[in-house]
């Protein structure tokens, strides 16, 4: 069948629209990359001279290093706690009926609706009222609450597509519940557990708003350190740091895409 003029027109306008939207998505990152190479302390477009000195500055600024260490620790510990609690809850929610099951689910999923600033404020007030110190554990607690729903969802989806027959076979052959759990259930759930934990770690690493409420100078995360830097200095150091930030995130996404296929993970296939 030959294409009509209208069809060609639609095809081409579709392509132009698609390219402009993708351009809009990428524009800020391209601009930030150009700005990071600007030699002067005051940004100008196009840059009058080029240099890499803001990259050196980003590496040397002590708050960024300390923030990175805090963020990595918080993300690792927080994602682990969220994985244990979230996987356990997804398992009992999928398999059993028990008292207050619906209520427990509502409370645990509520951080999807409650704004992050409210979660941060709530836990700050709570910890002050209980006269707990504003330690790194308070920040971890806030992050666990925020990332838990995503872990639960990821593990729950794996459990729903789970083939129960393998467990039943193992049981009928005399396996104890613990044996079945460790040798059949956990290995089969592994992809869901890994993607849930990864997602939790990325979200926690990026979390800013709720953290701002509960950190202090000693426990500040990398996003909070970056925010404080913009408020004090206008030089392109943060542009350099943004470029450094983009690289590992993009690499990780490509890696996840290669092994899990994002279309499948996001259910858009």
């Amino acid at each position, binding site marked *: 069948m030959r294409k009509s003029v*209208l069809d060609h027109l*639609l095809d081409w306008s*579709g392509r132009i*629209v*698609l390219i402009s*939207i*993708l351009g*809009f998505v*990428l524009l*800020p990152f391209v*601009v*930030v990359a*150009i*700005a990071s190479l600007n030699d002067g302390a005051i*940004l*100008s*477009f196009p840059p009058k001279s080029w240099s890499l000195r803001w990259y050196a500055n980003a590496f040397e600024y002590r708050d960024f290093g300390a923030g990175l260490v805090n963020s990595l620790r918080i993300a690792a510990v927080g994602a682990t706690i969220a994985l244990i*609690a979230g996987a*356990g*809850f997804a*398992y*009992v929610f999928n*398999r*059993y009926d028990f008292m207050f099951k619906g209520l*427990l689910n509502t*409370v645990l999923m*509520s951080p999807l*609706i*409650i*704004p*992050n*600033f*409210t*979660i941060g*404020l*709530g836990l700050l007030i*709570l910890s002050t*009222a209980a006269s707990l110190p504003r330690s790194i554990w308070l920040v971890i607690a806030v992050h*666990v*609450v925020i990332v*838990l729903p995503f872990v639960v969802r990821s593990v729950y989806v794996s459990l729903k597509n789970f083939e129960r027959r393998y467990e039943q076979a193992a049981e009928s052959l005399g396996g104890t519940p613990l044996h079945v759990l460790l040798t059949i259930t956990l290995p089969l759930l592994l992809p869901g557990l890994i993607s849930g934990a990864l997602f939790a770690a*990325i979200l926690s690493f*990026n*979390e800013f*708003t709720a953290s701002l409420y509960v950190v202090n100078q000693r426990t500040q995360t990398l*996003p909070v350190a970056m*925010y404080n830097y*913009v408020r004090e200095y206008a030089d392109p150091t943060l542009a350099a740091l943004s470029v450094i*930030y*983009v690289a590992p*995130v*993009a690499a990780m*996404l*490509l890696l996840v*895409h290669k092994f899990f296929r*994002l*279309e499948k993970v*996001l*259910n*858009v296939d």
Partner: protein
Amino acid sequence: MSKRPFLGWFASPSILIAFGIAASFLAIVQFSLRAHIPGALDPGGFTLDNFTTLWKTVYGKAFVTTVLLCWWTALFTLLIGYPLAYAMVRAKSARLRSAILLISLTPLFLGEIVRTYSWMIVLGNRGFLNATLMQLGVIDRPLDLMFTMTGVVIALVHFTLPIVVVMLAAALSHIDRNLERAATSLGAGRIRCFLTVTLPLSIPGIVTATSTAFAWTFSAFATPQMIGGGKVQTISTLVYQVGFASFNFPLAASLSLVGLLFTIAVLALFNTGIHRLERIGAH
């Protein structure tokens, strides 16, 4: 042997966390009913004053600004996100589909600060956009984009786009293509087929995406704070300011409580909308 092995072991950690969430919510409710003593961090006796204070113009204005931001952001995110999701789902080559998906998703994992800072460089008075337009001679004075609603909306659309694209793509990919084929074989053109078959079938997805866009915009803090620069005051920036500039945590608590109730009300409205649509679709 118990019929529900591991129930206690598996449920306990999440029950503990649920108690923490409930307790922090109660802490907010409790604080919202306490008096503020200037200069002291501990609140005073029980009172309803915080809620009467909220009737003041500053707070009312912040509410209006927030709702306007949510509305414009949701609208433009849908207008941009729909073609993107459509192109992704209908892309003929798998490579193009993956490329669109990766490009739309990357911003989601870059966090609020990197994205907002990047937009500050694009939108600033000496920023990329103004410098380029002035050099091209399109404008002779920089456009006011920083510290304005327009600037905040542009950055918020960018912030909300990935999640909206994912939701719309999920909805579009589950539409039965045979219905479109039937329409085309009966003589409908591509535009007519889209308007009478594809678009109506994707309305539930559009409603879910809109409600998510709304919730995201409502809770956004870094974008209105950094691009609005105090000139665009939303609930989120006001709660932070009231809490950390005046240390009036009782007022901050009541402000977030009212904001939360408002979010729940709007989301419930969207939900009933979806149920209605599904019932219409069932007939």
